[in-house]
C-alpha cells in the first residue's frame, strides 16, 4: 500500500539514510584525521608498518564504537561537572580490555605498539566524538558514528602505512615486494616522513573535492 511505503521511509530504521551517512562521512568529507584534525599523534607514530596500523585501527574502532555506545546510554544521567572524568573512566576501562586482549592473542603487535595502546585513552578522536556526538545523540547512532570515525581513521592510517612501508622498507606486512635492486628510502622510516605523507594525502583529498578546501 502507498501509505505504508511512505511511513517506512520516514522511520529511517536500523540502517536508514542518516545512519549510512554516519558511516560514510568520516571516510572522506568528515575524516577524523584529515578534516577534523584528531588522532594525529598515533597516526604519526604507528604508520611505519601496515601490521601495526591495522592492529591500531581495529583497537580504535573497538574503543570508539563501544565508548560512544556506553556514553550515549548514560548521557542523561551524567552530571555536567564530572562528565570528562566519567568519559575518561569508560575509555580507560575499554583500553585496558584491549591491552589485555592484544597481550593474549597478538603478542607481537602488543610488543611493537607498547606505549601507543595506552595512549588510545588520550586519542582525540575518541574524546572528540564523545563530546561532539555521543553526549547528544541516541545509542545506535552514536555507535555507528564511533564505527564510522574509526573506519575513517583506519583508512588513512593503513594508506599511510602502505606508502611508508613500501618505500621505506620495501615490504608489505613483512613480505618483500620491492625488487632487490631498490635502494631503501630512509626518509620514509623517519617519523617526520609521516607528516609529509599526511600533507600529500590532504593535498590529494582536497584537490579531488574542492568543497573541502580551507577558505579562511
Amino acid at each position, binding site marked *: 500500500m502507498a501509505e505504508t511505503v511512505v511511513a517506512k521511509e520516514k522511520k529511517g530504521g536500523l540502517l536508514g539514510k542518516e545512519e549510512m551517512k554516519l558511516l560514510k562521512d568520516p571516510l572522506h568529507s568528515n575524516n577524523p584525521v584529515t578534516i577534523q584534525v584528531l588522532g594525529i*599523534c598515533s597516526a604519526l607514530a604507528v604508520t611505519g608498518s601496515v601490521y601495526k596500523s591495522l592492529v591500531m585501527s581495529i583497537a580504535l574502532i573497538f574503543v570508539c564504537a563501544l565508548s560512544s555506545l556506553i556514553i550515549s546510554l548514560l548521557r542523561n544521567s551524567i552530571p555536567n561537572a564530572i562528565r570528562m572524568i566519567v568519559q575518561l573512566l569508560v575509555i580507560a576501562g575499554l583500553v585496558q580490555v584491549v591491552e589485555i586482549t592484544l597481550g593474549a592473542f597478538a603478542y607481537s603487535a602488543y610488543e611493537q605498539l607498547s606505549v601507543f595502546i595506552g595512549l588510545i585513552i588520550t586519542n582525540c578522536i575518541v574524546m572528540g566524538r564523545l563530546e561532539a556526538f555521543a553526549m547528544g545523540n541516541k545509542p545506535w547512532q552514536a555507535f555507528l558514528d564511533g564505527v564510522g570515525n574509526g573506519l575513517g581513521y583506519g583508512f588513512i592510517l593503513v594508506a599511510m602505512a602502505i606508502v611508508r612501508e613500501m618505500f621505506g622498507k620495501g615490504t608489505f606486512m613483512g613480505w618483500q615486494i620491492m625488487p632487490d635492486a631498490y635502494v631503501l628510502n630512509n626518509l620514509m622510516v623517519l617519523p617526520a616522513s609521516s607528516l609529509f605523507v599526511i600533507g600529500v594525502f590532504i593535498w590529494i583529498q*582536497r584537490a579531488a573535492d574542492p568543497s573541502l578546501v580551507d577558505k579562511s
Partner: protein
Amino acid sequence: MGESFNIFIKAAFIDNMILAYFLGMCSYLAVSKTVKTAVGLGLAVIFVLGMTMPINWAINTYLLADGAIIEGVNLTFLRLILFIAVIASMVQLVEMVIEKVSPALYNSLGIFLPLITVNCSILGGSLFAVSREYAFGESIAFGLGSGLGWFLAIIAIAAIREKLRTADIPPALRGLGIAFILTGLMGMAFMSLAGLNPADFN
C-alpha cells in the same frame, strides 16, 4: 641542581615533545592559527605539565610502587587511571581560572582547553618521567622543560602560519596541508639536535 638543569634543557630543546616525539599534535595544529591563541594554550600546557609531573611522581612513588603502602603490594596497574584523573582535575582548575581571568581567550580556545586533558604530551610526559625514574626535583624540571618546549614549538608554527596567510599556496594545501609539511620540516631540523647531551658542555 646541575642534573635538573640538564634535564630541563634536554626536555625543552633536544627531546622536544612535539618535534622529536610528535606528542600533542592535535591541539598543536588546531590552535596554531594565530599567535595569540597559541600563546594562551602554550602557557596553559606549561602550567599543567609543571604541576602534574611532580604530583604524578609522588603518586607513583608513594602509592603505586612495589611495597609503597604495604609491603609486597604493587599497584602499578592503576597508574594510567590515576594519572589521567590528576591531569583531568588540573585541567578543570586551569579552565576555571582562564574563564575568570580572560573570557575572550576562553572562548577562542573553545573545545581545546578541556582537550588538554587528552593531550598525549601530558600523559606521555608523566609516563616518561616514571620510566626514566627521575627524582622529585628532576621531574619538576622535566615537566617545566617539556612544557617550555611545547610552548616554543607551537609559537614557532603559529608565527609561520600567520605569515603564510599572504603566501601563494595551492588551494588544496592551504591551512592544514601546509601546516603538516611545515611541522615535518621543523621536525627534521630538530633531528640535528638528537643525541646532544647538555651535560657534556659543563
